[in-house]
């Protein structure tokens, strides 16, 4: 039996080496050449070792230099690194010049390994923490939108606790995960954990875009990685205590654009209790709405003017409030540093009674003991969500549905007193016979959740030799919580509400727990072979375990009203349980060979073993190779060029494999719905058939990168071109249902993707106290399905039969398909010669892809003295989405389209009749029937391509005006920093004329089924507020 012995080897080899070093002490002060001010935070290291110190608040440092060392290196972001020989001195003062090249910047790469940018053979982009928090976002991911080329952030909905989808360079897998890997403080994490992170705690995020960048993380990083580093104190920094507070008000940005000409009714006739809008034209007369109350009722029949009420749906929504406060402390002493924070956020949503609160605590600390640095990053997070339930009424609908099913002539906000039997908002009295009062929905359906997360990373870094470091890291990310979802029973008086059925009550309790454990060990060495050749090598091992469990108990038809405990249910409670474990481990090596500091060759390899594939088939090796060429240093003619200050070209190729989820290699049985019946139990075979030889999928990426710096770094340009090819895709194909399965999980086909990322940034204007920096990111990518398998040219990811998201051979992925009108060769709609109704193709047509052709992000920062004005805008275009909501509202007659012919029968414009095969004659006189109602609700609504809309959007995602008080004003005050700001999130959105329903970014699921949304979410919102930061 093969035993794990690698760690033993690594550890035993180095344990016992003398940790004590002989050396002399050097002290000094580092100042800036620009203004002579002291520079805190400058890194002072002994070259070729990791022995180092950092200057304190006064620019002073002290370092113990080994006897064998002859030089010290001083580096600071934005400054030229200097290397000075010691020459026996004990005091060395240094003046640093402003950097002319960003190539000296340090990049945090995979596994926390730091490399100079010039050495990195693939494309990365860094976002500083303060760029993320400028508009006080509640989720860090939201603040990344528009700031990084290649990154697409989808905010799945509004609401008090939104979720986000993070995609890098589009999609590479049809059925597999396409989201970027999140690594927090060196440990593999999750996008949920990223959402749970207090954005104020983030020091920076390094975005490793291609699979190349992340080959060392194994399968999980096949979609690129976001390396998130949380704050630690700076060495030499004095104690800082600060508070960041913000308040934002959230409002509905826009409601769907509806017709306001026709009101409540059916087939052209007024109907006082309809949710539909097929009534007569608004005329302003007083009309009955709601049930007719009998004479002995305390209620009188409600009368309202038959005319549209302005913003009647909008008025249902409230202004949401979000307060957030973070108190933080950081500092250092001797060889210790720490950062601690406490965050508190409280939010009231736009939906009445929606509430959310979260608290987070973080303590990061490190201590250096001789050659060993120990560091610990821990965080605890807890949130409580109290929102309206998602299965309201006798049709189990979402709240927005009830709002949307309210006619234009209904004064919706007057129905808020839903629990009062003498109010028109009360169940029996409400006007709408089919969809209940949304206020009632809010009061009788609640979904409560509490989740907790603990993350802990323990890190040990040991400088065994000047050139050799051993680092080991143990991390845990534990997430647990519980939820309660309940619905109250509602009965109806059949004489007032004949169409409603009793709404049954239920209570559902859920509990979940998931824990990731990760362990890494790496040995890294830096060698100088001679003056020209350097070698940096890393050997390592990594092990991961993921445990998950979930329990749900639901009890129906509760006996005691208002008592929401499962013991209160009648009949058998429903119980569901899910547990899973996934494990893997891997060994890897990475070596970078540099020549004259202007060309670097990187090679890495990793071998993984996973628990989720069959033994014997569960090991896979993946290599990567890359080259970085700093041509401005290499080519003499380009040296010291004032225009082109630096230039770097990179090329890389990497291969990554994706494995399966736990337990997916076997076909399974599960208990059949409703069973057991007493002693009779029943199981069903899963509808997922699994290929007996199911295997990993392979992603190969080629990438070409170019970094240019102009005018001493004032303007810079980053470009990348990449190509990915995914083969042996693990795909949930759609077999014929007659095979006895609805999904066939197999390795098939090929996807290829390519794209371009361009970033151009720099200072547009720079004079005295004024500076205007602009950064433009352009991302274009497309993924195409090259092949599936013989006889199958498409796979449905999700389909209604009339529209859906597909993978179609030869087309961009993901592809929207929908049924379309039959058209003649000139593109005119063919109508039935008898009915005048359009003919519909029986097969669905390709409507376009649902990820953008390109994304353009623009960031602007204008600074003048203490003022700064920032703006982030992004534009996405070239894609479509399906407006589920507007399709649903077509049925109710609220769509703009439904009044386009004035509710009359009409001749479809530009239509033809096929008089004999292939002969088309213009239709001038055959009208559709049912123009007052059924044409729209049935015929038009049946052609789902009518609801496939241009998903283009321009969003001003962030805007802020900040003012920081000048330091001299605060010289005598007890505070050291005060800044205040006005902030706005998503203040403006521009959408194409044809799309006026919802935010095309909203999506029903977090999966690859991108492009279907509309009414499961709340309407889109915008937020305004202010933020204050004070440091003591």
């Amino acid at each position, binding site marked *: *039996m*093969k*035993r*794990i012995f690698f*760690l*033993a080897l690594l*550890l*035993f080899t180095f*344990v*016992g080496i003398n940790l004590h070093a002989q050396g002399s002490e050097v002290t000094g002060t580092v100042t800036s050449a620009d203004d002579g001010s002291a520079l805190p935070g400058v890194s002072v290291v002994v070259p070729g070792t990791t022995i180092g110190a950092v200057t304190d608040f006064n620019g002073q440092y002290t370092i113990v230099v080994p006897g064998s060392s002859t030089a010290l290196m001083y580096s600071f972001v934005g400054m030229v690194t200097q290397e000075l020989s010691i020459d026996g001195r004990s005091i060395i003062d240094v003046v640093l010049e402003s950097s002319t090249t960003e190539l000296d910047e340090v990049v945090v790469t995979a596994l926390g390994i730091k490399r100079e940018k010039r050495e990195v053979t693939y494309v990365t982009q860094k976002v500083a923490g303060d760029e993320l928090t400028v508009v006080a976002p509640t989720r860090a991911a939201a603040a990344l939108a528009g700031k990084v080329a290649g990154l697409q952030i989808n905010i799945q909905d509004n609401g008090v606790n939104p979720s986000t989808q993070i995609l890098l360079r589009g999609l590479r897998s049809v059925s597999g995960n396409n989201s970027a890997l999140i690594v927090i403080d060196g440990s593999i994490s999750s996008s949920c954990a990223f959402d749970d992170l207090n954005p104020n705690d983030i020091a920076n995020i390094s975005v490793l875009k291609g699979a190349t960048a992340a080959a060392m993380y194994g399968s999980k990083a096949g979609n690129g990685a976001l390396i998130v580093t949380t704050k630690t104190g700076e060495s030499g920094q004095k104690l800082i205590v600060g508070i960041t507070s913000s308040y934002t008000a959230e409002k509905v940005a826009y409601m769907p654009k509806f017709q306001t000409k026709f009101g409540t009714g059916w087939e052209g*006739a007024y109907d006082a209790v309809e949710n539909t809008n097929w009534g007569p034209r608004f005329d302003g007369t007083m009309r009955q709405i709601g049930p007719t109350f009998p004479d002995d009722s305390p209620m009188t029949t409600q009368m309202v003017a038959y005319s549209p009420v302005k913003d009647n749906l909008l008025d249902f929504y409230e202004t949401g409030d979000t307060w957030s406060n973070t108190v933080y402390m950081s500092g250092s002493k001797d060889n210790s540093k720490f950062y601690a924070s406490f965050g508190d956020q409280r939010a009231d949503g736009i939906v009445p009674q929606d509430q959310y609160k979260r608290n987070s605590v973080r303590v990061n600390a490190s201590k250096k*003991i001789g050659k060993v640095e120990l560091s610990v990053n821990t965080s605890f997070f807890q949130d409580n969500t109290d929102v309206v339930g998602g299965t309201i009424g006798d049709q189990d609908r979402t709240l927005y549905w009830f709002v949307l099913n309210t006619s234009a002539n209904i004064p919706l906000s007057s129905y808020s007193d839903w629990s009062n039997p003498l109010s028109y908002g009360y169940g029996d009295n409400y006007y709408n*016979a089919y969809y209940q009062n949304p206020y009632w929905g809010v009061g009788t359906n609640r979904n409560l959740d509490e989740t907790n997360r603990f993350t802990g990373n323990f890190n*040990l870094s*040991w400088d065994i030799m000047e050139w050799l470091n051993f680092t080991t890291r143990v991390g845990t990310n534990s997430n647990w919580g519980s939820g309660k979802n309940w619905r109250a*029973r509602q009965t109806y008086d*059949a004489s007032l509400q004949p169409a409603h*059925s009793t709404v*049954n009550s239920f209570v559902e309790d859920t509990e979940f727990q998931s824990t990731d454990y990760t362990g890494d060990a790496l040995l890294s060495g830096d060698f100088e072979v001679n003056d020209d050749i350097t070698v940096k090598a890393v050997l390592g091992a990594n092990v991961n375990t993921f445990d998950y469990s979930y329990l749900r108990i639901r009890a129906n*038809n509760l006996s005691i009203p208002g008592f929401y405990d499962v013991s209160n249910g009648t*009949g*058998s409670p*429903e119980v569901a*349980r899910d*547990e899973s474990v996934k*494990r893997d481990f891997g060994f890897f090596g990475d070596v970078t060979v540099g020549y004259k500091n202007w060309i670097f060759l990187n090679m890495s390899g990793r071998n993984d*073993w*996973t*628990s989720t594939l069959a*033994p014997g088939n569960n090991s896979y090796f993946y290599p990567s190779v890359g080259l970085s060429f700093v041509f401005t240093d290499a080519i003499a003619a380009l040296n010291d060029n004032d225009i082109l200050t630096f230039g770097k070209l990179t090329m890389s190729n990497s291969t990554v494999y994706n494995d399966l989820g*736990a*337990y997916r290699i*076997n076909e*399974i*049985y*599960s208990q*059949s719905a*409703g*069973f057991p*019946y007493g*002693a*009779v139990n*029943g*199981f069903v*075979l899963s509808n997922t058939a*699994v290929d007996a030889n199911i295997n990993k999928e392979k992603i190969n990426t080629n990438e070409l990168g170019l970094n240019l710096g102009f005018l001493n770094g004032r303007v810079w340009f980053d470009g990348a071109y990449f190509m990915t090819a995914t083969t042996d895709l693990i795909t949930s194909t*759609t*077999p*014929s*249902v*007659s*095979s*006895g*399965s609805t999904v066939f999980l197999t390795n098939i086909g090929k996807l290829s993707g390519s794209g371009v990322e361009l970033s151009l940034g720099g200072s547009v204007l720079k004079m005295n106290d004024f500076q205007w920096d602009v950064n433009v990111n352009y991302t274009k990518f497309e993924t195409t399905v090259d092949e599936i398998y013989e006889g199958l040219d*498409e796979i*449905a990811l999700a389909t209604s039969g*009339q529209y859906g998201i597909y993978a179609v051979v030869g087309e961009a992925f993901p592809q929207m398909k929908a049924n379309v009108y039959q058209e003649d060769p000139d593109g005119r709609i063919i109508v039935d010669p008898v009915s005048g109704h359009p003919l519909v193709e*029986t*097969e669905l047509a390709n409507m376009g892809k649902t990820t953008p052709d390109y994304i353009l992000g623009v960031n602007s920062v204008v600074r003048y003295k203490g003022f700064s004005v920032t703006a982030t805008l992004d534009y996405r275009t070239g894609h479509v989405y399906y407006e589920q909501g507007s399709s649903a509202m077509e049925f109710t007659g609220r769509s703009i389209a439904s009044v386009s012919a004035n509710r009359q029968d009409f001749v479809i414009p530009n239509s033809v009749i096929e008089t004999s095969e292939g002969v088309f004659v213009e239709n001038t006189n055959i009208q559709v029937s049912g123009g007052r109602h059924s044409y729209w*609700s049935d015929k038009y609504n049946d052609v789902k391509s009518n609801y496939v809309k241009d998903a283009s959007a321009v969003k001003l995602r962030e805007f802020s005006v900040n003012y920081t008080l000048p330091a001299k004003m605060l010289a005598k005050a007890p505070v050291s920093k005060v800044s205040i700001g006005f902030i706005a999130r998503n203040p403006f959105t521009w959408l194409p004329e044809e799309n006026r329903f919802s935010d095309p970014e909203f999506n029903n699921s977090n999966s690859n089924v991108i492009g279907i949304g509309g009414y499961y979410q709340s309407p889109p919102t915008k937020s305004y507020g202010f933020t204050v930061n004070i440091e003591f």
Partner: protein
Amino acid sequence: MKRILKYISILAVILLLNTSCEEFLDVNTDPNNPTSVTPDLVLPSAQKYTASIIQKDRRISHFGNMMMQNWSQSDGFSWYTDEFKYNVTSSFYQRVFNYSYTNSLKQYQILDMLEDTRYDYYRAIGKIMKAYHFQLLVDIYGDIPYFEALLRKDNATPVYDDAATIYAALITELDAAIVLIDEAVAPDVPDIDDAMFGGDMDKWIQFANTVKLRILVRESDVRDVTSDLAAIATQGSGFITSDVLVNPGYLIEKDKQNPIWGDLGWDEGGTQTLSSKATCATQFILDYLTGLADPRIDYIYEEPATGHLGVVQGLLDYDTPVLDAFVPELVSNIGDGILKSGTMGANIFSMAEVYFLLAEAAEKGLITDDPKAHFEAGIQASFDYLGAGSAAGYYSSAIPLADWNSSTGDELEAIITQKWIAMNGITAEQSWFDYNRTGFPSGLPVSLQATTPDRPVRLFYPAGELSANGDNVPAQPDAFTAKIFWAE
């Protein structure tokens, strides 16, 4: 420091060495789902699926009820828009095709594929029930995947087989099932896990014969089935002797109720479902039953206090001339002869149908029985199922089509018409097949919203087949003219 490091490393090594690589990775056994189960756990869920595909909301019988003017829609609902338009598309009733294969047939296939001979009874049941379902699919769709179907990962794109060829194969399979039962050696005998016959294998043989009878009578106009019918007689076990009900032990609990009760009656909380309120009699059927003085009208339909009231199929304007004339309280919803209770068995083959099949065979001279006796026994079986008491007065009422003797010259019409009434609300798809085959009952109107002179004769292949099995699925036949082979 040195010592601490040493301990940490020793500890780490011990922890890692303790488990071998294989053991460390050997965690891929699903703790929540088995990968194999015994047939006694497969059969009851299969049978529950059978009940569901026949009886649930918008499944097979429901479709028959819509096509055969049994059911209409009350005011306040837009439940049956596509049905009233005869809007046969690739999504219309696609779940009939989809669920037949992926629910019931998938489960019966597991039984049919059992290799251990101790499970021969289960295999036989699998074969009989597959034949039952495949016949329904042929009758609704014509050519369908059969010989290559249900092989799951071994064939994701089965070819479509000729409908008549499938019919012949079903007879062979039913014969094989009877042989399996007859010749089984020390078999495991199903018990309470058999939700149809409780493991009574004689009844299974009778049911096999009954399914054969349905097949043979259906194709009797296009093929001489005399010898096949004679073979059933020779076999000697006869036909079922009571309604075939699936009842795994239905309870008034969520997901556990009788399927038609739960969908078109009352939910587990005792609330009348919206589908139940939405569904009511057509005025045509009420008039028809009244015309025959048929007492079953009060069992098939609920009688409101204001008297029976139906809605013309496809009515658009419910409020003219009288506002709210057709709200659920005022119309005749489904009656308590159909919706007896939430725990009743689900009828998948009624005794009345057996008699009417025999009556038709006898009337056509395919068997030598007396058609009149079967005709009257069929009516009585229908009365019995509905709880309507004795039918003697009815079938001797001298009313044509109710009384055999008064239907001289129209015997087949009488049989099919009475079968239509008997199948109402139970297995109404059978009447739709009969109508397409015989044109009876005569005078059946179309929906007001129909744009064709008559109702469809078949359904379209579902959209999923067009995309997932595009190379094999035939072009969609004309849903209104391309009759199934037995009606050509």
